[in-house]
């Protein structure tokens, strides 16, 4: 079924594709933008072929700053590197996690905890970039994030709602990279405020009057300069007005949730962001990322990690049980990821420093078999002892869950070949 790259002239493909991409940001059907599956090159046969996806969407929880593995998902009771953090039992047989995550412990039977993550990138910006794109940061190109790849291959679910949303966090996001700008995620700074500028500040009648006037004053220009880009701007305004009137907009309004639900997620930005993520997931958004910062615990690790964990624990546990209750946990992958772990050796400031060599991540739902631990670090948490997982492997696992074609090569405008998770091997064992 898979043809070789020579079957399609690359230039032809690129220029052909480029023509299709001049449409309106949120209005065009992404499905037609997918490259023909005949395009293959460098990554040919690098990883397993596409499977039927078990998940329809991803909620990506990004722990910015480098989450300490020893104090969260990879506790080492009795090890000299452990410090004061204690282990507690969970709802999964034989799986222990940190005492700082008691609520998550009750949902561990849904989770696959990966304790053998390993990378070589120990700087924040570079690590963050690698985790989001599976590629190393380079000065010559911007790679697309996983969300942009998902949209590129899967298309969108719903008419007016933006298909990819990034909530909170000042962390730089690679966004759509070298893909067209309509794969760019919409950024929500404050989840309680939702999407900006969707409400008119003037009375509806006046607003309509002005929009009509704009339409009339544009008529002759539109006729005389009938060009695709001009038409794109006309439909952009139509789409914007449609979105303003769309019931989908309510998805962005978490104030519609009962107080008890809002409280369950926690009153902080991350918790409310998780709640917004759930609402968006329900309304057809494919890829939602929520950021929780503050994990860069060079100092006072045992004060600050528990604080972060409180926030994470509440939001994540509420999200899991909420999705489960709504029957959406089966087709939603929740990923918990970070750029690197932290040094098992505790430093003189009672902190832990950057440590990419061994760290942890977690996947929940969307076909993932719960209650398991994958891979392991050694007794001090300093080395990977079993089944090393790279960042591309981790992202490939999510892509696999979504049913994305892992070895399909797409080309950057400079005609360099790229794949969704940079030839990472998916951990197919994680799926039930």
């Amino acid at each position, binding site marked *: 079924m898979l043809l070789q790259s020579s079957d399609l002239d690359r230039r032809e493909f690129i*220029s052909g594709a480029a*023509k299709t*991409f*001049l449409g*309106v*940001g*949120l*209005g065009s059907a992404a499905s037609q933008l997918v490259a023909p599956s005949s395009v293959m090159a460098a990554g040919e046969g690098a990883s397993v072929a596409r499977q039927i996806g078990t998940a329809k969407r991803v909620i990506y929880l990004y722990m910015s700053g480098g989450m300490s593995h020893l104090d969260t998902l990879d506790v080492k009771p009795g090890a000299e590197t452990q410090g004061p953090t204690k282990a507690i039992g969970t709802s999964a047989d034989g799986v222990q996690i940190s005492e700082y995550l008691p609520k998550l412990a009750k949902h561990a039977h849904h989770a696959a905890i990966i304790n053998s993550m390993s990378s070589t990138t120990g*700087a*924040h*910006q570079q690590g963050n970039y690698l985790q989001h794109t599976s590629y190393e940061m*380079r*000065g*010559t*190109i*911007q790679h697309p994030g996983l969300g942009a790849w998902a949209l590129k291959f899967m298309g969108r679910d719903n008419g007016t709602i933006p298909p990819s949303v990034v909530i909170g966090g000042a962390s*730089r996001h690679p966004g759509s990279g070298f893909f*067209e*700008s*309509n794969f*760019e995620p919409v950024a929500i700074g404050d989840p309680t405020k939702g999407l*900006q*500028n*969707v409400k*008119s*500040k003037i009375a509806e009648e006046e*607003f309509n009057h*002005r*929009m009509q*006037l*704009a339409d*009339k*004053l*544009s008529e002759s*220009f*539109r006729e005389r*300069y009938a060009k*695709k*880009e001009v038409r*794109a*701007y006309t*439909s*952009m*305004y139509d*789409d*914007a*007005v449609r*979105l*303003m009137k769309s019931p989908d907009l309510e998805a962005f309004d978490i104030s519609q949730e009962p107080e008890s639900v809002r409280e369950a997620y926690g009153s902080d930005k991350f918790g409310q962001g998780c709640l917004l993520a759930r609402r968006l997931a329900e309304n057809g958004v494919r890829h939602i990322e929520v950021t929780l910062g503050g994990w860069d615990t060079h*100092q*006072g690790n045992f*004060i600050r990690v*528990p*604080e972060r964990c409180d926030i994470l624990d509440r939001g994540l546990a509420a999200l899991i049980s909420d999705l489960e209750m709504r029957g959406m946990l089966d087709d939603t992958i929740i990923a918990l990821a970070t750029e690197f772990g932290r040094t098992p050796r505790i*430093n*003189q400031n*009672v902190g832990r420093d950057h440590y990419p060599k061994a760290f942890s991540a977690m996947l929940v739902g969307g076909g993932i078999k719960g209650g398991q631990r994958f891979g392991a670090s050694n007794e001090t948490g300093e080395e990977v002892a079993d089944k090393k997982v790279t960042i591309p492997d981790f992202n490939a696992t999510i892509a696999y869950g979504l049913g994305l074609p892992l070895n399909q090569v797409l080309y950057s405008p*400079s*005609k*360099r070949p790229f794949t969704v998770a940079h030839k990472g091997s998916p951990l197919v064992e994680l799926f039930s």
Partner: protein
Amino acid sequence: MASVEAAEPLSPSAKIDQLLESSWQQQGIEPLPAASDEIFLRRIYLDAIGRIPTAAEADKFLADSSTDKRSALIDELLASPGYGNHAFNFWADILRMNENLGGGPNIVPSYIDWLREALEKNVPYDEMVRQLITAEGASSENGAMGYTYRDRGMPLDHMANTVRIFLGTRLECAQCHNHPFDKWTQMDFFHMAAYSYGMSANGRRSTAFGDLQQEMNQDKELSRDEKRNIQRAFQEISRPVRNDLVVEYSADKLPQLPHDYKYDDAEPKQKIGAKTMFGEAPEVASPGEQLHAYAAWMTSSENPRFTKVITNRLWKEAMGLGLIEPVDELTDATQAAVPELFDYLCEQMVALDYDMKAFLRMIYHTQTYQREASVEEILVPGEYAFTGPVMRRMSAEQIWDSIVTLINSTPEMSNWRGEAEREIREVAAQRMSDALSSKSKAEMRRDVNRVANFQKDLQDQLVDLQKQQAQARKAKDTKLTQELGKKSNQLRNQLRSWIMDQVYEPVLAKSPAQPVVLQLPDGLGEMSMDPNQVDGNGRPTGAFRKQLDAKTNQLIEREMGELGITDKRDSQVYLGFRRTAMATYLRASQLRTPAPAGHFLQQFGQSDRETIENAEAAASVPQALTMINGPLFQTISNPASVLMRAVADAEQPQEKIDTIFLSLVGRPASQKEHALLLADVESRGDKIYDDAVFALLNSPEFLFVR
């Protein structure tokens, strides 16, 4: 309004027209009609200075009956400060001027200033490039060193970027293997990389500082913990001067082939010397001259790709499409769209000694540039016959700067407040850096030990505080937890001010600070700054900011005097509005580069300046939402805005409507448009003016350059 013949062309401009005409004849196609004055006016403002004309500027040109008025306007605009403001954006995209990235500044402020100044002075292109490639030294002395600093730690990528930007050639693929679609080998890549491989960007520290750091690190008598403490002391001491940077060149540093090099012509990990990818670099007498030989080869008029790239880029800037597309993927097989024309343009570029302004002037004077814009869907860029410029959406910067023109009555004014703050920070950092460098090794050793001790002391207190905090947390005493957290922060700050007082102040006190004199715009004269007006983090103090506020007020009061605004309420509105305008509604090139996430400029596709020329002109729904519901419209329709003041000055409703049309789309309203708007006067009264502004702002005629 009657259209005037295009200006008497200069002879190279006529030659360009002639070359194109014969190419159209051969293909049997007709050129587009000559553009009306209205079309020409708006286009030349946007192309030459990056913004639309005000109603007054439009009026003046359209009412002028002299036959050479187009030529006069071209020259006037190219000579105005708007040219530099606009050209800055073009180069900031190419050079990836990004000051937002984390982990220290990504570009040094003096690099931004260097670019601004080079464009204002119209430094020839080849000279600019030579300066960029070869700049060594401290950031405070040579802003062009920012070019190398931008790619610090990535010498291989740096070379690939240089070749792409200035030779329009893609080498990056050849970093890991021979280029799959072009002739370049991995060996070519490493030969080329060898030229600039020895350029490195670092913080500027004295040798004594470096030596001591190494010495103490190797001291066998110190325990591991003591050593760590001392290293941290070094770090803390150098913190205030961390932005004082330097680029240094050592010719003997050469790149190494990768460990998996798989071709027969060399061994893996072999060191590779410099050799140009084509042609030959001038002979060098010593390795130290190699960098300059490289720059001479790169920028030589004999280097065909060097001239082609800039010729094509500037043609594209003016006409909307390159004669070669994409502009930076030249191969031996690349053919320009109208080859005779392209060859002639390249000759002109050399003849004009790479004077970019003169080159643009030549294009603007052609009849071809002064034709109506093409709305053809150009599917294969190489096949467009250039029967006129290509219609396009304004760039993000052009849209923003046009909106600034509607709001801010001094759109070309520099961000002098920002410059003053930057200047004082730089001078302060420089002084501190000098202070640190002036210390002998013995003095420095004493400082390091003292800081280490003080820090250790603080550390014990900090650990104690954290224990208390842990207990408070367990007891769920949020108030106490927060209080203790605050105390921890105070302790950390204490270290910084202690270092300022103990390490820097004693030296600084010995050499009294020379005041820095800053030239202010618009006849405000000079302002003298005391370089000590910075806090422990090197930021300007509140008192300094107040001084700047006073100058701003002075400027605004003078304006009010000139405008005859005396009414108390009007004065207040005007004062408030102008303050905001001068702080917020500045030309894009005077704001942060690029604008922060979520800013209007980013929404409309301003390049993130992380990769080369990454701007976008695609429509997206958030753009429309910003335009129709965002706060911008309220600012534009504020009575103190340029636009609304002009509307207020016009007397009759007809005239007011024409003022709005001239302001937004550079032409008076048609009869039909007048009728349409005036029909609402009875029901909507004066609201029809706001209605018209809103409607035009949200029409394609505003966003597109025809």
